């Protein structure tokens, strides 16, 4: 069962989840905000692709870029309108705000577009496979892995080589201190939300290609995955998020192979039980970094 196909599938799933978790963690690291509206950014990317592919003659590559841009701007917009005003108030207020933003975007799509699923036309490449060493591997999976490598490289360069990136990492480490040293809070937070949106946009391309359709509630499953991957990786570490994404993919693939069929449908429940256990016994995640939250007792 553990053959080349399994390995490539798991790697591609891991790449997808790693990017997904990164987008969530980059905001969490700075604001301590678990962004419930993150899944809806993926939905925004999906609807952008649906609208552009269905009603404009643009080439597919341009459409994909525009989907990422749309997700990024939605992310920036939610930060500006909803999160910035409640940022100083309390963490609980911010969390409820993100839950409200998520509901708002979801029902906005329901209201403006349709409750029904919309088919997204994808290029031929996403449906074809290539033969490697006697097994057929879908191009989509290879593309996911390549995109992940490219994205992670670019992000690492941004975070390590640019002033903005260094400010971002400093803010994730100690936001108050960073602000005292003259780094404007709004710039850092906006950048984090922009990167989060870009990640969601990239993920939306590959996530939506799996079902080739988009619905208003499509953001929920990837959000749950991102939660789990983030917790496994330790909430505030970017490396941890990538590791968490891959660990999630490996666990879920192995559960798929080894769990008896009767229990297979409870797979999600198992994953979330793992989350609770990790948060209880290793709240700093599998990759040790700064602590997640205060724990009593």
């Amino acid at each position: 069962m553990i053959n080349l196909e399994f390995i490539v599938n798991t790697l591609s799933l891991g790449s997808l989840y790693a990017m997904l978790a990164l987008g969530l963690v980059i905001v969490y690291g700075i604001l301590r905000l678990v962004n419930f509206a993150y899944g809806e950014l993926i939905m925004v990317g999906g609807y952008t692709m649906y609208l552009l592919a269905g009603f404009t003659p643009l080439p597919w590559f341009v459409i994909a870029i525009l989907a990422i841009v749309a997700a990024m701007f939605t992310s920036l917009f939610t930060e500006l309108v909803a999160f910035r005003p409640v940022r100083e108030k309390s963490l609980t207020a911010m969390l409820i705000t993100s839950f409200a933003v998520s509901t708002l975007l979801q029902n906005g799509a329901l209201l403006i577009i349709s409750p029904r699923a919309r088919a997204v036309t994808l290029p031929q490449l996403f449906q074809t496979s290539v033969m490697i060493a006697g097994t057929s591997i879908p191009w989509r999976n290879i593309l996911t892995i390549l995109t992940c490598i490219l994205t992670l490289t670019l992000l690492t360069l941004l975070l390590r080589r640019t002033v903005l990136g260094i400010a971002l990492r400093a803010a994730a480490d100690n936001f108050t201190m960073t602000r005292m040293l003259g780094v404007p809070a709004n710039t850092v937070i906006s950048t984090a939300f922009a990167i989060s949106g870009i990640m969601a946009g990239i993920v939306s391309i590959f996530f939506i290609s799996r079902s080739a359709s988009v619905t208003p509630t499509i953001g929920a499953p990837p959000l749950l995955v991102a939660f789990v991957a983030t917790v496994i990786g330790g909430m505030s570490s970017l490396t941890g998020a990538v590791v968490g994404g891959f660990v999630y993919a490996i666990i879920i693939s192995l559960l798929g192979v080894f769990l008896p069929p009767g229990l297979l449908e409870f797979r999600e429940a198992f994953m979330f039980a793992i989350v609770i256990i990790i948060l209880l016994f290793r709240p700093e995640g599998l990759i040790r970094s700064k602590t997640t939250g205060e724990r009593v007792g």
Partner: protein
Amino acid sequence: MNLPARLKSFNTPLILVAGVLVIALLTQLLGIPLLTRIVTVMFVSLMLVLGLQLYMGNSGILNFAHIGFMGIGAYTAVLFTMTPKAKLLTNSDLYPFLVPLHLPFLPSLLIGGLVAALLAALISYPLMRLSDAAAVITTFALLVIIHVVLLHSDRVTNGPRTLFGVDFYTTLWTSVVFAVITIFVVYLFKESRIGLRLRASRDDRYAAASIGINMVTMRWLAFIASAFIAGVAGGLWAHFITSFTPYSFYLTETFVILAMLVIGGPYSVTGAVVGTLVVTAAREILRGIENYVNILNIFPDGFFGFTEVVLAIVLILILVYRPTGIMGSRELTWPRKQPQVKEKETLKSSGKA
């Protein structure tokens, strides 16, 4: 606080109960079936929101799993009130030992609440150590787990299919009685020693710990009480709606009761009551508009989601401009009783001594 002062502070629940009774009487006198339905559901929601307030308001920690316990209570109560024949009719795969169970309405409701409370007690003790984001993710995870289990336990809940054939028991006055009891319970809890300790730990966890408050146990007790109330409310709701699926106990409902509590003001019992009234009224008006537009048939795919969009915007605006909700941490009290006279007396008496 001495005893007379405690009794005086009782005017908050009395005012709230009076409000509930006035609404119930008006509804009864008007006798419009639609209004009666709305008000009955509102009182069940009120119970849920009060239960949520009991934990969230006193401990200051968000709880996403509340609706999950409502679901557990609903399914448990229904298993006891339905006749064996009706049960097999809706779900022929039911585990054989569940088929002969049959009890009257009230004991079934209590069992529903107790099962929810028992599960909460078993699961939640370790979770009570977590605060902030970790607490939010774990309760969210708990909601997902409960949902997945309800959804796939075909032989108990009928799986994702609708469970139908539940008898109608919850009338307007049943829901009123339960809402009134819950107002007193939640208010008494807030003023009790446990409630006081919990609120102390909410305001300053280090100071509270330093005077010997066991925060984890206090949170745990509140969480169990809150789950019990949610479980009973679930049973009431189930015997009003009479057919439902596990999707009735998931994110949409969670959003609604959170909105009710946050808009009203999570830190006071009055806030929970006011929030439930305001949000129910707003929802029904918006829903009316939504239905009207749908009848007009302007949009090819229908006009859905309008209610939730407006509600979400209002929620965000409240959080921006009044983050502690309409009531803040104030409770409604009778305005005329001011302790000025008494203060003079105490001054005099202390002067004599």
